């Protein structure tokens, strides 16, 4: 019996270890295997948006990693030694009429701001009147080749932000949570503040792109769904959480951290 308990204990331990193993995505500095999409260096591999290899003296910035977003000197005032112009696009805000935050804290919820606006300095595809991804502040533009603007699924234009994308830059504080809970239909959906440590609001208690996405490090190694038969379908990258070691599960864990959808069913007689 003791043996059984011991084996069962070890088995449980192994199962626990197996279930928490996670595989993070490539580091931003990984130039050998490459693949971190936020590393726009010409030395990176297997990415779409990438600087052209240096061809002349002065082009060596093309091989740098951080320069596309950060500079150690003469940074833009926004934050984090920022090296880009502010987006000049008017995006608007997610416009669903069912959105409680739209009604309860409209003053706090408008144009994307804070770190989300910094993300949009590349992801809007048109920042500063059509300046390319290589348009950094403190050097001449870096030649990005044909893919100098973000297009396709990674592009967040006004239309997508207004009608299709999760709202960002709204304050998610007690007042907002209470307002959501007070709505008779939303009240049953168990909204809550994030509890996974990696899922964070910003200093102003606002939900930003960075609440769910870590621009430096994708915590899941996959950027596509792994489950057969449709292996290869794209999944949004750079999830902050990698506890499950599987992009879909990590993605869902982040969603469900705030959208704590109850799993117990209403009793219907």
């Amino acid at each position, binding site marked *: 019996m003791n043996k059984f308990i011991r*084996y*069962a204990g*070890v*088995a*449980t331990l*192994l*199962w626990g270890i*197996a279930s928490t193993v996670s595989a993070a995505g490539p580091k931003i500095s990984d130039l050998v295997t490459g693949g971190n999409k936020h590393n726009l260096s010409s030395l990176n591999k297997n990415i779409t948006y990438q600087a052209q290899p240096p061809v002349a003296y002065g082009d060596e910035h093309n091989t740098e990693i951080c320069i596309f977003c950060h500079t150690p000197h003469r940074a833009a005032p926004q934050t984090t030694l920022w090296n880009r112009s502010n987006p000049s696009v008017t995006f608007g805000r997610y416009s*669903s*009429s*069912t959105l409680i935050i739209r009604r309860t804290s409209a003053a706090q919820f408008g144009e994307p701001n804070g770190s989300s606006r910094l993300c949009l300095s590349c992801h809007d595809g048109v920042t500063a009147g059509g300046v390319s991804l290589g348009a950094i502040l403190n050097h001449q533009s870096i030649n990005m080749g044909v893919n100098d603007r973000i297009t396709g*699924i990674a592009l967040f234009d006004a239309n*997508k932000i207004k*009608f*299709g*994308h*999760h709202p960002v830059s709204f304050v998610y504080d007690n007042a907002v949570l209470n307002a959501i809970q007070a709505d*008779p*239909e939303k009240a*049953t*959906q168990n909204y809550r503040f994030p509890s996974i440590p990696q899922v964070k609001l910003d200093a102003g208690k606002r939900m930003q792109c960075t609440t769910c996405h870590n621009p430096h490090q994708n915590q899941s190694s996959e950027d596509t*769904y792994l*489950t*057969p*038969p*449709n292996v290869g*379908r*794209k*999944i*949004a990258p750079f999830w902050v959480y990698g506890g499950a070691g599987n992009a*879909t*599960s990590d*993605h*869902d864990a982040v*969603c*469900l951290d705030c959208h704590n*959808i*109850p*799993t117990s*069913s*209403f*009793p*219907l*007689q």
Partner: protein
Amino acid sequence: MAKWNVLIALSLMLLSHAVQAASSSLPSHLDRQKLPYGCGSCHVGFDFRSGGGLDGCLTCHGSLQRRVKGSYRSSRELKDIESELKKNYRHPILESKGIHSSKERLPETDARTPRHADCVDCHSPHQVSSENRFAGIKGKQIGNIVADITKEYELCYRCHSDSANLPGLSTNKRIEFSTMNPSFHPVESEGRNLTVVSLLKPYREKRISPSEISTITCSDCHGNDDPAGPRGPHSSSYQHILRDNFSTRDNESESAFAYALCYRCHNRSSILGNESFKYHSQHIRGKQGGTASSGGTSCHTCHSSHGSTEYKYLLKFDTDVVSVSSSGMLKFNEKGMGAFRGECYLTCHGVDHNPKTY
């Protein structure tokens, strides 16, 4: 070596147990065993326009041609709801595109709102499960509050009772089924009539033993006519989305098929054998006894299927068939409680009942 075998076996047992537990306790759409893409199955790339809506649902629940391979895992083939929604009698779900609003509160208070039915009017996609297809549904509006729905009929009433946009020919089902009425089919509660002699077992006026059934639901009558098809009142080949045929026409030959819906619970032999009303058979079969155009009429000519605000025994005359008597009256008087005796004032098939007493 043996120890490792035990260890591996135990690990597999624990793993399989964990997977099974997850499968059985989760709503279908939150179950990663069923939806390999998780939230991304519907909310692809966080484009919310791609989640929800009829097209979203039909990606998995539509026709085989429409389905996206690999979107779901199921031990059995999902039912094809899309084909159902093309039957003659249906909830107008395919027609609801662009009409449904996620902020609507039902019953509808604006008479100008177009009638519609969307998947999400009856199902909450996040919480629905095969065990509870209504789990998580929106509540019913009562004044300024939204009350939880716990009975199927309450869900149906959201559209079929007090809606301001109820079509002209539609009746308020809440009023028809009210337990304050002299008679009603036992949907909201057990019925009041204790002498329904035609009831087939296990149906009974009042439930005494656990095996007896004394209340019914809307979906006992309204639902798919195809027992192999998806359950529920999505559609039917029969009028009013009924699970069986129910002819409501006049001059109808009586047959097991003509009133198949009624005969699910009410014994045909008892009714045609006049066990309750003395002239039941004559009214249903006509004087010539069941040949076409013999003057037989539908159960519906004298009985409401839902309830009667005027009379016991679900009596309610269909004024498309029945008109006033020579003295201008259209009414039923009961003579002696539960004695199956009464009198009718009406005109039907040219026969003046002024009154006819039985």
